[in-house]
């Protein structure tokens, strides 16, 4: 393929950043389009990270520095990819930026890295999300943690964490497991205990899923060292009582209905596909699963179709390290494509 072959990477979260980084380091041309002003997607909103308590902003700073030094990578910030079609082997994409300007660009390969959304927990009337200000979703809680760290607002004293909100629920949500919430809930509860050791944190769980390198040790350390209480049972409802949130649940180990009063409830909302991903998939004719996550071709982890690849949360829930790995894998696919047969 000609030397000018360019890859368009849609979405500048950790997956898209890693794809751009690898392509640039290999000397390939790529355009990285990110809807927001800053790169990093969801990771840029996180206060701490599993499984090593690292500051996720350190990772983003490092990746961004590395990206900046690459001549073949152009980064379009505040730029949303609004349309795309393929004609005679070339992709024609349209974009729109935050000041209302529109434009078009061409590419010979596409990497979709549009990430994921969180399920709207207000569907569960019984949990009071959107009604009681003390009931927040997990991403909002990362901001609560940040505000405490920055000295803007103190952390509420006692906190209950509900897992599987909208996941593993075929009546109101989705039957699948969102994969990352067991781990980030452990992280969030552990971080809260770090910041405010006198607070009480309860994590309500059906089971905890910690299948990954250092994951089980991480959750155990949250329970044993940080003293987070794990209570087995899926909470049934949240009611207001004397200005506090009263959580009703059955402790399924002793089999008794119980309640606990807390100051904040954090809902680990299900990971769902972004509407933008569905639209792009439709325009490109990509196969998606019944929920709208992009499906891989048989035999590949990141290939959606001829010359179209994907990475990160647009394929399914994935943690940071997995999203990076997929970004790198998508970059490898593009390199193989652009360098068919090898350079002499």
């Amino acid at each position: 393929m000609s030397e000018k072959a360019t890859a368009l990477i849609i979405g500048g979260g950790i997956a898209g950043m890693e794809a751009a980084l690898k392509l640039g380091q290999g000397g390939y041309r790529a355009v990285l389009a990110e809807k927001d002003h800053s790169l990093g997607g969801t990771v840029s909103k996180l206060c701490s990270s599993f499984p090593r308590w690292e500051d996720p902003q350190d990772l983003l700073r490092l990746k961004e520095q590395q990206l900046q030094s690459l001549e073949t990578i152009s980064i379009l910030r505040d730029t949303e990819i609004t349309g795309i079609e393929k004609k005679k082997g070339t992709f024609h994409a349209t974009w729109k930026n935050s000041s209302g300007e529109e434009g078009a660009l061409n590419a010979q390969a596409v990497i979709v890295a549009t990430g994921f959304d969180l399920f709207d927990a207000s569907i569960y009337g019984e949990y009071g999300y959107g009604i009681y200000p003390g009931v927040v979703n997990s991403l909002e809680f990362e901001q609560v943690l940040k505000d405490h760290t920055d000295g803007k607002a103190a952390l509420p004293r006692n906190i209950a964490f509900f897992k599987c909100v909208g996941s593993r629920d075929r009546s109101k949500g989705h039957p699948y497991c969102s994969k990352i919430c067991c781990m980030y809930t452990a992280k969030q509860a552990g971080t809260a205990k770090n910041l405010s050791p006198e607070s009480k944190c309860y994590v309500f769980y059906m089971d905890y899923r910690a299948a990954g390198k250092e994951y089980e040790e991480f959750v155990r350390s949250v329970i044993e060292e940080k003293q987070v209480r794990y209570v087995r049972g899926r909470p049934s409802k949240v009611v207001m009582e004397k200005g506090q949130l009263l959580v009703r649940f059955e402790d399924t180990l002793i089999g008794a209905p119980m309640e606990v009063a807390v100051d904040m409830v954090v809902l680990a909302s299900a990971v769902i596909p972004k509407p933008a991903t569905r639209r792009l998939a439709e325009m490109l004719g990509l196969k998606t699963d019944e929920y709208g996550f992009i499906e891989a071709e048989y035999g590949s982890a990141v290939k959606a179709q001829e010359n179209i690849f994907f990475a990160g949360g647009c394929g399914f829930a994935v943690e940071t390290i997995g999203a990076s790995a997929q970004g790198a894998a998508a970059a490898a696919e593009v390199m193989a494509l652009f360098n068919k047969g090898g350079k002499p």
Partner: protein
Amino acid sequence: MMLTESPIRRLDAKAPGLAEELKRDLDIDITRCLECGKCSGGCSYAHGFDYTPRKMVQLIKLEERGKLLRMRALWTCLSCQLCLDRCPSSIDMPRILDYLRGKAYAERLNDVHPEIEKFYEIMLSDIRNNGRISETLMMARFNFATRRYFSNADLGMKLFFKGKLKLFGPKTKNLNSLRALFAKLLFRSPAEQEPS
């Protein structure tokens, strides 16, 4: 030598499948249960049950038919539907309990808790005679019949002064159609036999 029975509960692999029966008769699939307890934490009366709804599902899985048909909760469930509404797998517990109550009647296990049976009996006869219930009279008759002359009196007085209890029960206008309804029910289902 006689083998003494083990004190440890043993699963009966040959037990007739209660789960399969529910699937066949009610189209309810209890294998969908996630054992999460969401039904039980929100149940209107689980704090007074011998088995919470989640445990009832477990009893079904373990083929504990006898325990299910004899449990108090079979008769104290309020049929409020909250467990079904909250269940992530839409398991219709109130319907299952209806079904099991029918079985309990059929197997004449409905009076293993005599005071509960008495309560139903008094309530039904009130409905039959008046078309409606007078809570005050019913409570008094129930306490008398079960010889707990003063139990619930505190609660009763409170409700009375709040205007929730009326001393004389209202009557339904069209008692004849109600009698016809009872006649039809009694004719059709042996489960609803006339209280003796």
